[in-house]
C-alpha cells in the first residue's frame, strides 16, 4: 500500500477475506475514482491456502499448522457461513443443494472440455503471425512429408 503515494495515487488496504469490508472499500474507491478521475489502489490482504501450483508441495517451506490455522480463521467462505448462521439467515438445505448443483455443473464443464479433440497438428503453425509466412508453410510441408514417410500417427 505504501506504493500508492509513490505513484501519486490514493490507496486503501482492506482485509480481503472479509466480504463486507471489501465491498465497502471498493464502493468508496469507485466513488473517489469517479469523482477525481484518478486511479485508486486497493490492497486486499489474503492468504494462499493451496500449493503454488500442481508441481509444488508447500509443506516443504511452510508449516502445515500455519495453513490449517489460516484456513480455520480467515477463510472467507467459512466466515460468511458463520455470519449467516449467527443471524439465522442460513438455510443449510439450500446451501447443500446449491453446492451440489454447482459441483455437477463444474464436472459437466470439465467433461465437455476433456471430450474436445486435441488440437490438430496445423495449430502448431497457425497464429504465429497474422498470415502464415512462406518459411512456415515450407516447414509445415516438410513435417507432413516426414510424418507420412515414416508412417507416424498424428492428431
Amino acid at each position, binding site marked *: 500500500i505504501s506504493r500508492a503515494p509513490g505513484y501519486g495515487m490514493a490507496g486503501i488496504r482492506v482485509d480481503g477475506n472479509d466480504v463486507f469490508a471489501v465491498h465497502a472499500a471498493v464502493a468508496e474507491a469507485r466513488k473517489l475514482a469517479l469523482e477525481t478521475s484518478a486511479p485508486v489502489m486497493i490492497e486486499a490482504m489474503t492468504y494462499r491456502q493451496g500449493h503454488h501450483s500442481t*508441481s*509444488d508441495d508447500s509443506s*516443504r*517451506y511452510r508449516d502445515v499448522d500455519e495453513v490449517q490455522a489460516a484456513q480455520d480463521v480467515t477463510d472467507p467462505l467459512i466466515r460468511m457461513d458463520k455470519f449467516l448462521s449467527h443471524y439465522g439467515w442460513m438455510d443449510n438445505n439450500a446451501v447443500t443443494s446449491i453446492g451440489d448443483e454447482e459441483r455437477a455443473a463444474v464436472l459437466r464443464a470439465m467433461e465437455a472440455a476433456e471430450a474436445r479433440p*486435441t*488440437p490438430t*497438428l496445423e*495449430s*502448431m*503453425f497457425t497464429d*504465429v503471425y497474422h498470415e502464415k509466412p512462406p*518459411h*512456415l508453410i515450407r*516447414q*509445415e510441408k516438410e*513435417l507432413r512429408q*516426414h*510424418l507420412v*514417410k*515414416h508412417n*507416424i500417427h*498424428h*492428431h
Partner: protein
Amino acid sequence: MKTTLQRSSRRLLPRAMQRHDIMTSCCKSLTTSSFHNDHHQQQQQYPLSTVVVGRSFHSSSFAAAYQEAAYNNDDDNELQTSSSYPPFPYESSYNPTKPDPDYPSLGPTTKLNLFQSINTALQLALSTDPTTIVFGEDVAFGGVFRTSQNLRSEFGAHRVFNTPLSENGIAGMAIGYASMGGTAIGEIQFADYIFPAMDQIVNEMAKFRYRSGNQWSCGGVTLRAPCGAVGHGGLYHSQSPEAYLCHTPGLVVVMPRGPRCAKGLLLSSVRCKDPVIFLEPKILYRSAVEEVPDADYEIPLGKAEIMQHGTDVTIVGWGAQLRRLQVATDLASKEGISCELIDLRTLLPWDSDTIIRSVKKTGKLIVSHEAPITCGFGAEIAATLQQECFFHLEAPIQRVAGYDTPFPLVSEKYYLPDETKNLDAIRKVMELAK
C-alpha cells in the same frame, strides 16, 4: 537483504583480480567432498595439476589458445589433437558409466543425477571460495529442481538466500557483487524467464570489462538456468535461449550434457574470469545418472568434446539433444555409417577448431538443436564451417532443429528434432555426397 550484503562485503577482497590467488591456495589444500552423500568416506588430497583437466580456460589466455589452431590451414597437423586430448582412434560409443578418456582417472566416483551433481558442484564452490553466494527464487529451501538443497543449512542464510521475483534484480545483484570481487551464483528459475534480465546481461554484464578498459570486471558472475524441452513445458517452460545469449560478445555460454561434465563445467564456470550463463537441460535433472568423480575437477571452457570418433559424417549438438543424436548415430552405424559425434559444451566462445578438423576429415556436417532453426546457434556453426571448409565439404551442411514457432504444448513431439529426423538427415547427407 541489505544486511546480508553488508555482512558479505566484509569478506570481499580489496581487488577484483585476486580470484586466481584464491583458486591456487584453495586447490593446494583441496579435499574431496565428503558431505554430499554417505557412499563415500575417504578424504584425499588432489594437487592442482591433476585436478584441472586439459588446458584450463582461465589459466591461459583464451585468445592465444583460440588463435593457435583455429584457422590454421596446416594440413600436416590436421588430424592431430591438442596435447590435452588422447590420440585417436579410441573406443567408440558414449557410455556414461564407462571411464571417459577425456576425464583421466579422478579417483572414486558416485552415481549421481544431474541435480545432485550440480548440488555437489555448488557445495564445492561455496566451500572453496568464501566469497561465494548462491541466490535466486526459491533457492533457500532447495530449489524447484533440488539443485540447492542443504546448502543453506550448511553454509548459512547469509550465503544462500532467496531473492524477490525479479530476474533483472538477480542479474543486477550478481553483477554488483562480482564487480567488488566476490563470486555470485545466481539462479534464474527457468531459462524462459531470463528475458527480463536481458538488459542487465547484455548491456551491463557483457560490457563491464570492455567499457571500463579492464579497470573493472564482473567475472565472478555465474547465472544458472534450467532450459530445454521437458515433455509438458509448453511455451514458457521449454525454451533454449542460447542463440540470444551467444549473440552477445563478452559473455560465456555453457551447456552440459550430463552429470559428469556438468560438475566440471560448473566449477570451471564459477571460477572463470568472465561472466558465464550456465544452461542446464531440465529434462536431465532426474533422468540422467552417471558416475561422477567425487574430486573437485574442472573441465576446460571453450573446448568441444568428441564423444565418438567416426569417418563419414560430423554431427554437432549440445545439452539433452545429444541423447537423441546418440540414438540416431547408433542406428546409422547399423547401416554402416560411421558418425563423429561432438558435444560443443561451450557455446560462446565455441570450439570451431575441433569442428573444422572433424569436417575436414569427414566432409559432411549436421548440426542439431531444439531451439528454432532460424538464427539458431546452428546457423553460426554452419556459416563458419562453410567459410572454412568449403572445399572439403562433400554435401551441404544440414541443420536439424525446431520449427519457427513458439514451443508448442500438445505438438511437442512433432516439433522436436528427434532421432528419426536426425537419422533422416544422416542418410540424406550420405546420399548427397555420393
